[in-house]
């Protein structure tokens, strides 16, 4: 097949997804990433952009309950899916226990990595409501913090887990769809396992 035979990609396609419980739609060029669409089209600036190669975790969001690097996910891969960003963690004006614990433990220094840390921690507690310290370290290993506030971040996650209790997270209870697929099942048509950041966490 020569280059001439490659069908031209459509200039724009429509996208529908649920973000933080709200139905959203956008008309986008098909090559754009979920990160880009969240930030530029939907105005959700809480999700951050840094490395764009799935290494730093600043762009972590929940996609049908699983944490993903939104820089590695085409927006179209999220068509019909449910996305939770940092803006969706607080409910009814009340901070998520993780957010409160991050405040109480001074876990946010410059703050730039914090949205990704929080979302990754939310995913971790969704699948493991009572993690050990080592499990928290594994769960957040894909989220770089150059302020290196890791000790306080880890303490905050452990504290939040304790505050939420063994029944699991408030977010899980109030939003079953976010947690239902759990680890290992995507239900989103994601075909490339490399785009699922759980694969990047290799416990020591």
């Amino acid at each position, binding site marked *: 097949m020569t280059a001439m035979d490659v069908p031209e990609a459509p200039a724009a396609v429509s996208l529908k997804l649920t973000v933080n419980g709200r139905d959203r739609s956008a008309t986008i060029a098909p090559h754009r990433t979920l990160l880009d669409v969240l930030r530029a089209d939907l105005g959700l600036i809480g999700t951050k952009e840094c490395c764009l190669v799935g290494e*730093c975790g600043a762009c972590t969001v929940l996609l049908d309950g699983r944490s993903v690097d939104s820089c590695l996910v085409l927006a179209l891969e999220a068509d019909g899916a449910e996305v939770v960003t940092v803006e969706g963690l607080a409910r009814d004006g009340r901070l998520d226990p993780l957010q409160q614990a991050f405040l109480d433990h001074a876990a946010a220094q410059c703050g730039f990595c914090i949205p990704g840390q929080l979302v990754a921690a939310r995913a971790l507690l969704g699948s493991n409501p009572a993690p050990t310290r080592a499990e928290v370290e594994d769960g957040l290993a894909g989220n770089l913090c150059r302020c290196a506030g890791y000790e306080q971040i880890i303490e905050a996650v452990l504290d939040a887990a304790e505050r939420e209790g063994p029944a699991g997270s408030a977010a899980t209870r109030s939003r079953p769809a976010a947690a239902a697929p759990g680890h290992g099942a995507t239900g989103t048509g994601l075909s490339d396992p490399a785009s699922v950041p759980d694969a990047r966490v290799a416990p020591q």
Partner: protein
Amino acid sequence: MTANLDGIGGSPNRVGGAARVTGGQAYVADIALDGVLHVKLVTVDAPRARILSVDAAPALEVPGVRLVMTPADLPDPMPRFGPQFRDRPLLAVGETKFHGDPVAAVAAETLDAAEEAVGRVAVAFEPLPAVFSIDAAQAADAPLVQDPALRPDDPFAGTNTLREHRYAWGDLEAAEAAADVVVEGTYEFPMVTQFAIEPHAFMAAPADDGITVWSSIQHPNWLQRVIASLLELPLAKVRVVAPDPGGAFGGKQHAKYEPLLAFMARRAGRPVRLVLTLEETFQAVRRGAARVHVRSGFQRDGHLAFRDIDAAYLIGAYADIADRTVAKGSYTSAGPYAIPAVRIRARSVLSHTVPSTAFRGFGNPQQIWAVESNMDEAARILGIDPVALRLQNLAQPGEPFIPGDTPADGRWAEAVERAARRIGWETPAQTGRGRGIAVGLKSGPTTGLSYSTVRLLADGSVVVYAGTSDMGQGARTIFAQIAARELGAPIEWVTVVMGDTIVVPYDQQTSASRSSVLMGNAILAACRDIQSKLRAMAARLEDVPEEGIEVDAGVVRLDGRELPIRDVLVRGLGRLGGEVIGVGESRKEAEPDHPLGGTAAFYEFNCTAVEVSVDETTGDVTVHRHVTVSDVGRALNAEQVRGQDEGAAIMGLGHTLMEEYIFDAEGRIRNLGAIDYKIPTTLDLPARLESEVIENGDGPGPYGAKGMSEGALLCVAPAVAAAVRDATGVVIRALPLSPERVWRALRERDAAGQASGASG
């Protein structure tokens, strides 16, 4: 300390923390400007190239492209800028100096269009010989990095040495003759990068009669001066908006591409925006690499007789603030010791590599790596315990240890003793583990000027204006704590305004861990100004003489009574309401005769002790315990201080164990970006990280505080290397202590052992 320290030293939650955990914190790249054009930089694939021509026409044909800026579109001669030397051009003119040095820039309606157009700017260039190492740059026939015409009267102009710094005291010759033991070695520190998780972001927009520039910068007032000078505008017409940086670590101190964007915004007549990729930040900022030769002479009893240090820093293609890091990092390089004779020489060497700049520690970690490693080697040669050797030589409180500079301003021995005790220095480590200890000293700011305005509003709430950048160190919280305590407001009633040069009074800079001290003192002075106005108000209301009234910690005391400030305020302001405005200034004057232009406002002192094991088959170093003890004077916010100390410690483990730029033969950074350049993650933490602070209230800042954000990084490398030696017997004099380097050292040890075994 007799003062009531209500509200100081606790850990109120970070002011601005809620925005940081809800995603509401807007960094530069999060700010949407109407009609903004997206900018991408055009570079050539060469470390140094003669630019023959730049043809913008093909790029201009890309739909959506509005401007292709080339040197031909800029004034002739090309405007240049830089904090120490005006050597950096807006765009490379005639010749590029490093991989990533832009020759043109594209502005387009979309980022896609800008990216497409970058590849269509036709640049004809001819690669030129280039230098990437200290040796190559200092060779007799080395190609020159900088045009000698930029410094015509400088004797170094025909070389790649930008400057040489020499410091000396005592009689070195006599001390050498009297020394019993001389220990010497050469130590290498690689290029590492700041890697703030927020890549540098810049925007510029034409204003009615001036310009507005947004930048993730640490020094907005400095940037304002640069832009005003380049555009020939009055300062009042240059507005720099500087939202909290998403990490900076020194890499965001000085102007980078803001001047270019200002010219582009004016030419396009539209706002422009440039957000660097992480890869581009690697090509924008780094720490200076260094090679340091140390000779130390000792009496047999362990007393230091002399120290002779010769250092070269590879600073890169443009000077930025790098030469200052060399000057300042070398000035204190003999360490926190009382030494009769010292000679220090240090050169900043230009090269065709990424310009280096400030990075947490500011030129000191390179020297401390060398000098403290040398100290450890000396301890073993002398047969003296490394802790005892340091305690024996440390400058005592109040002792002048660098002639003409600030005497030792803390009980440094206390930090060493606490670190040693905590790690269990007196009891042997378990089999297979090694321990190491080191100390680090850094001079705080040598000059300073900070202003603050504080407004006590009619209901007793407070607005503080401070030109400091809160880049994660938590300055906003500290300032709110000070104002809350002094004016009797709950901290939740204090708003701190930062980051806008049209609104906020002048602050020299956010660097050198200065802000709690210098800006803190300015805010304290502004609060005291308000207190004196409240005193006059109370005198009028209560009809008592002002002299008998005291205002402190939120209360007004008179006639044996205590009135809340708010009561006096509300009555004093009367029916029209209004507010009480205080202004404060904090100044540390320059001293022209001092080698650095001023004495140290304070010293940061840290002692780090670690316990490691080394995997003999892989060379992998595991840090089991990491104890870091910093003399902070007074911890104004305990949890924030802990975050700074532990963050600095882990950042130090990064350059100690894993970080370095690796170059190919053509001067490209091979590990360009997050996939191949590793920084510490949660899986790289010490098994136990323990931080302690020394608080003797002996600092020059509010309530006895010192600056403290860099100390815990300074001596991590020599402490870990000493522990590796303790565990394995190998001495390694180059960083990082990567598995490969450690493994090679172990095999060399084994080979040497076999050879000596065979011959014996």
